[in-house]
């Protein structure tokens, strides 16, 4: 009896403390949730509503006509495919460049690694528009590369400027720092001892990569891919400045439909379709984060 009565106040106090903490937590989270609702959730539903609700002279009504127009228009589909293709190529190139780079940064013990890390992070501090003009001056027609080749008596390069490879080069260069940082963070989960134990068991470098490192950074690679796809799919500046005029990537396409064609509803439809594709990769990202946390527990 004594025990039971004595635990009463403690429990009440504990609940009060828990309630207090809960309220603080709710207050802390309320600001970002409100911003999310105002700046993201509301515009999404608003945009979807504007594309499926028609308000012409006959009064409001449900219609999917802009979606039908988009998916039956060869030019719109070519733009969507170009964007998907550029995104896929960029993601593949980023992994091909950044994985060896991050492996080197994670496992190298030399002082050169610090220099390489500094260089790999450099693009992060260069604004996209500066990068775009730097690339035009370098690999554009009569750019730096052409001047060097000309001085050497060699023919000019087939410039990637205004071809799909223009934005690909720019986007890859621009995304190297973040991709490398995320992969290095993922590789942090692979301990030196885990690699040494594999070597001790007889694994050569390739076997260590295939059987030990890659399976342990699978989630990090998935996060990198989701993140890369999200940022590249919705890129505007580099595709606008470096990319081809026709077909064009979704970013410039939306801007032109909105600003030059003045078809607001079609521009919003393009945005909703772009968002829907990005949301699929976003879901991958959220799922990997959730899985990571679950495994962490």
């Amino acid at each position, binding site marked *: 009896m004594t025990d039971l009565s004595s635990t009463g106040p403690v429990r009440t106090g504990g609940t009060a403390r828990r309630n207090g903490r809960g309220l603080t937590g709710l207050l802390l989270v309320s600001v970002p949730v409100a911003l999310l609702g105002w700046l993201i959730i509301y515009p999404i539903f608003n945009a979807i509503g504007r594309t499926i609700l028609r308000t012409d002279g006959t009064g409001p009504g449900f219609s999917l006509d802009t979606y039908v127009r988009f998916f039956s228009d060869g030019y719109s589909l070519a733009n969507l495919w170009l964007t998907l293709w550029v995104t896929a190529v960029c993601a593949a190139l980023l992994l091909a460049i950044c994985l060896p780079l991050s492996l080197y940064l994670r496992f190298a013990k030399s002082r050169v690694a610090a220099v390489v890390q500094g260089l790999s992070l450099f693009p992060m501090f260069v604004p996209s528009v500066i990068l775009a003009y730097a690339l035009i001056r370098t690999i554009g027609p009569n750019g730096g590369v052409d001047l060097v080749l000309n001085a050497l008596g060699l023919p000019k390069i087939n410039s990637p400027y205004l071809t799909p490879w223009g934005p690909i080069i720019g986007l890859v260069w621009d995304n190297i720092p973040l991709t490398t940082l995320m992969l290095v963070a993922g590789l942090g989960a692979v301990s030196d*001892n885990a690699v040494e*134990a594999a070597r*001790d*068991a*007889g*694994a050569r470098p390739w076997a260590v990569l295939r059987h030990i490192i890659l*399976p*342990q950074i699978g989630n990090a690679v998935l996060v990198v891919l989701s993140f890369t796809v999200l940022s590249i799919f919705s890129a505007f500046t580099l595709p606008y400045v470096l990319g081809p005029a026709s077909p064009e990537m979704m970013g410039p396409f939306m801007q032109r439909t909105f600003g030059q064609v003045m078809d607001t509803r079609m521009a919003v439809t393009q945005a909703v379709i772009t968002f829907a594709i990005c949301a699929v990769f976003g879901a991958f990202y959220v799922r990997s984060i959730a899985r990571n946390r679950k495994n962490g527990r």
Partner: protein
Amino acid sequence: MAQLTLKNLGKSFDGTDVIADLSLDVADGELVCLLGPSGSGKSTVLRMVGGFETPERGAILIDGEDVTEVPPEKRPTGMVFQSHALWSHMTVADNVAFGLKLRRLPKAEIRRKVTEALDLVGLGDFGNRRVWQLSGGQQQRVAIARALVLEPKILLLDEPFASLDQHLRERLREELRDIQRRLGITTLFVTHGQDEALALADRIVVLRGGEIEQAASPDRMYRAPETRFVAGFIGSMNFLACDMRGGRADHPLFPVAAVVPDGPVELAIRPEALTVSPGRSAGMSARVHRKTDYGTHLLLDIVLEDGARVKAMCPPSGAFEAGQEVRLTASQVALFRDEVKLAEVRTEAREVAHV
């Protein structure tokens, strides 16, 4: 069964010598413990034997064959790491089978060897579990099985039980000793726990500053330390500073006689070599400062009149209280001067052994 020879090994990091000039022979089936404080170079030696560090000088020979430049994946060594270093994306059986799969052994043979190895460490039924479903002790057993399944000539263990609690550590080291004796595998074991080294080793090698301070059996290491460092590092030791004058120490409590040159010395006395009895010593008073009951014995912290503190071990039946004045006698005293042992004196038998 294999013999390991380290010849004049030298290794430095950032220009600082971590291992200066180290030579060691480990016999067939011998279990040698490398013992030393942090930074003494014991793990570096082990990692050089495993191939994870390359010595700048000297050679490593296994069964007479120079493996100094052989990469870890081709060395006949098996290593167990302090952090277990199990691969969390694999099952227990896959962890153990990894090295066998790389050697492209037939599946049936791999299964048999994995079962044998897991049985050896008492985890026969755990093959299908994920490593994170195991306790710390079980994980370390898997790591031992993973190292043993490849039948290495030399087994290397880098503080394998450091992250485990005391009971588990004691149980696992007994199990490891049994397995090592059963297989007769030559073993190099790194630890900073003197009790672990004393309990496990055929021979203990105490390292200090990258050099061997003493290499001896656990018995000799404890009872006949050759340097002041070893005397203080292995077990508990009381050091009392005094002077030798005319072949006798001028310490009022322990005026031991030994034929050593005059000059300052340190008397080194183990707590169990001290006998404590109620009363007052002739030359200097000594009082109990604190009494700690360990069940099997009492450990008395005694403060001498000159402020020096000594620890003495007594039977649990001893009736001592804090503040009580006591009389001290020592059955065995070693004399050190500048790290070097000058003499060992057994005071009961009045016998002096000079070194």
